[in-house]
Each structure stands twice: as structure tokens, then as C-alpha cells.
């Protein structure tokens, strides 16, 4: 495969990976923000109830004091929504993927710690009913690996692009001399 062909494939893989991560984050945000009762219409009160319900999942990790639990539970789902939209847009992919990798790294370490200390809790990751177990660890590790690969890929693409721009500009500068 030529260098150009490899670059093309790389860009396609980046696009697929980026869209996959965006869908995961949008689905995670939706699962946490949707009304707790299917019959309940979307409203500020339903979102508040959903976030309070998510706070119970965050609290069960026994990592944070209640004030911090509240803060995390109320900020995380909107941030996941924002991150999902950012990844979907493709704007400044290096930075959106880097933020995603850091966030997933944080999630992964918390999940590993909870699993190692033997907490038998619900994950709270993609809704309320998922029990934290080996499946959760595997899924989060895969997402972290994907996000890391996208971050590296995005930085490589950006660097190549910068090099290409520089090499195109260099002869022009020489001619200008």
C-alpha cells in the first residue's frame, strides 16, 4: 500500500472510531438524562430526578463525600453529551479525543478499584441496571484503547498535515528568495 493509501485508510479508521465514541457518549448521556419512568414526559423536573437517581450510582462507589457526589452526578451527564457532540462534529479532534481519553482513563481506574475492593454495585455507566463486573472492565478497557488510538491517530494526522504545509511552503519561500 502506498503512503497516500495508508493515509486514506487511517483517515477512514479515524472517522469510524470517532463516530463510534461519539455514539457511546451520546447513548451514555441519554441513559442518564432520560425520565426515570417511561411514561414521564421530558421536563426540567424529570432531568432533575434522573440526575438524582444517577447520584445514587455515583455514591455507591464510596469514593466521594455527598457534596462531591452531587457535583459529579449533575455535571457528568451534560459533559458526556457535550463530548459526544464535539466528537461527532470532528472539530479539533486532537483535543476532543484527548479529553475523551482522559475521562475514560478516569472511569477505568475507578471501575478497576471498585472491582478489586469487591464492591458489588451497579455500574451506572449506561443506565441503571448494569452490574459492575468483568464485562464492564472489558468494555471500558476497549473504549479506552479506542480513544487512545484515535488520539494518537489525530495527532499523527495533524503533524503530517503540518509537515505537508511546511514542505509546500518551503519551495515557495526559496523561490521568493
Amino acid at each position, binding site marked *: 500500500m502506498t503512503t497516500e493509501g495508508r493515509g486514506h485508510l487511517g483517515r477512514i479508521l479515524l472517522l469510524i472510531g470517532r463516530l463510534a465514541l461519539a455514539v457511546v457518549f451520546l447513548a451514555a448521556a441519554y441513559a442518564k438524562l432520560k425520565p*426515570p*419512568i417511561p411514561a414521564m414526559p421530558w421536563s426540567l*423536573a424529570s432531568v*432533575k*430526578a434522573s*440526575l*438524582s*437517581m444517577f*447520584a*445514587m*450510582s455515583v*455514591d*455507591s*462507589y*464510596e469514593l466521594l463525600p*455527598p457534596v462531591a*457526589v*452531587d457535583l459529579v452526578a449533575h455535571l457528568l451527564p451534560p459533559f458526556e453529551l457535550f463530548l459526544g457532540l464535539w466528537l461527532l462534529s470532528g472539530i479539533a479532534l486532537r483535543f476532543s479525543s484527548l479529553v475523551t481519553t482522559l475521562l475514560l482513563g478516569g472511569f477505568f481506574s475507578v471501575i478497576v478499584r471498585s472491582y478489586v475492593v469487591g*464492591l*458489588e*454495585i*451497579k455500574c451506572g455507566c449506561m443506565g*441503571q*441496571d448494569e*452490574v459492575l463486573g468483568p464485562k464492564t472492565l472489558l468494555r471500558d478497557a476497549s473504549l479506552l484503547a479506542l480513544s487512545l488510538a484515535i488520539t494518537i491517530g489525530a495527532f499523527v494526522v495533524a503533524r503530517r498535515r503540518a509537515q505537508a504545509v511546511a514542505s509546500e511552503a518551503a519551495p515557495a519561500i526559496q523561490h521568493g528568495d
Partner: protein
Amino acid sequence: MRAGLTLAALLLIAIAPAWLAGAQAKKNTKATPAPALPEPMRNLGSKTAPITLEVFSDYECPTCREFYENTLKLMMSSYIAEGKVYFVHRDFPLPGHKYSLDAARWEIAASRIGKFQEVDAALYDNQRAWAADGSVEKYVQGALSAADFKRVRSQVEGCLTQTVAAVKPAAQTNHICAVDNYIAEDKALGQQLPVTGTPTYVIYRNGQRLTSGSGFVSWKIMKEFFDSLGTQ
């Protein structure tokens, strides 16, 4: 003579129903067995409360104790007492805990004479002590009057040495421990959820299941969720 016979007949007619009723009553008294103990009352609060909290717990599990001491106790004195939350206790003794099944048996026996709260509190408050040496009975006795303890003791006699694996509904075994039937029922309910660890709680609003969770949740966080559902 004729008048006398009429009078005797009238007297017989008047007396006969009373005599028959008396005989029937005597017969009934003979047929009625000793009054059976009621179903265990392990629910707290008003059944009409908008929120129901069902908790599957194991008396020997440290997180269950933490949940009881820091969340349920505070809830009992506030939201349960105020009629906002209806609390349903379920026993889910885990096989890894040596004395948790016996503790559940004591609690159910106490619940059948209306002493759930007393024994529930005694078991959690002294969990570390009895979990270390198996002295469950001592703490149950301490929570009850002598007469009540005697009634409770009689229900668990002959049951206490059996293991979790032996707990099956009476229909499946020739089991004589009535208290074990209730534990088996709770375990069957838990397995349907499924309960993967203790404590596991299920929250209902007006009979509709909202969510379930496992592990410790502080009262502040749980209360916020209840409030967000419009209990105030």
C-alpha cells in the same frame, strides 16, 4: 293436659336452637387448633406512601450495616415516620456469611410477634460482635422482654444449625422450620431481580418500579432522589 303438652312443645322449640348452638360451639372449640402466628411484619410505614423502598439484605454484610446505620435509621425517623416512604425488608443471607442465616431466622421469628424493629436494630448495632463468635441469640435476647424472647426462641428451635443451602420452601422439603419458608420466598424474589450483592434496593413510585441499585447510598443522596420525585 293438652295445655301442658303445648307448653312443653313451645318450651322445647324455644330451647332447641340455643342447645344446638351450644353444641355446635363446643364442637367448634374442639376443632379449632391453637392460634397460628401471623405472617412476619417486616414492613415499616404506611402502605399508601408514594414511594416504596424494598431492601434485600444480609445481617452479616458490613455494607448492609453501614446502609442501616447511616441511611435506613435516618429514613425511619423521618420519611418513613412521616408517611412518605414505605419500607419493605427482605432477607438475602449470603452463603459466605456463617451466621447471617441464623440472624435472619431470629429476625423473622421476632417479626411474627411484631418485634421486627427491635431485633433488626439489635442485629445491625451488634453485628461485629455476633459475627465474630456467633452469639446472635445473646443480642436478640437483649432486645426483647423475657416473655417475647421465649416466644421467639420457640420458633427457631431446631432450625439454627442448618445452612443456607438447606433453605427451601416447605413444599420442596419436609422442613419443619416455618421461618425458613419466608427466607426462601425472599431469596426467590431476589433471584428474580437478580440480587448480585447486598444490600440491593428497589425503589417504586406508586407501585411502578423506578430503579434498583446495590451497595451503600447515603441518606442525603437518597433523600434528594425521593424529593425529586415529589414527596414534599
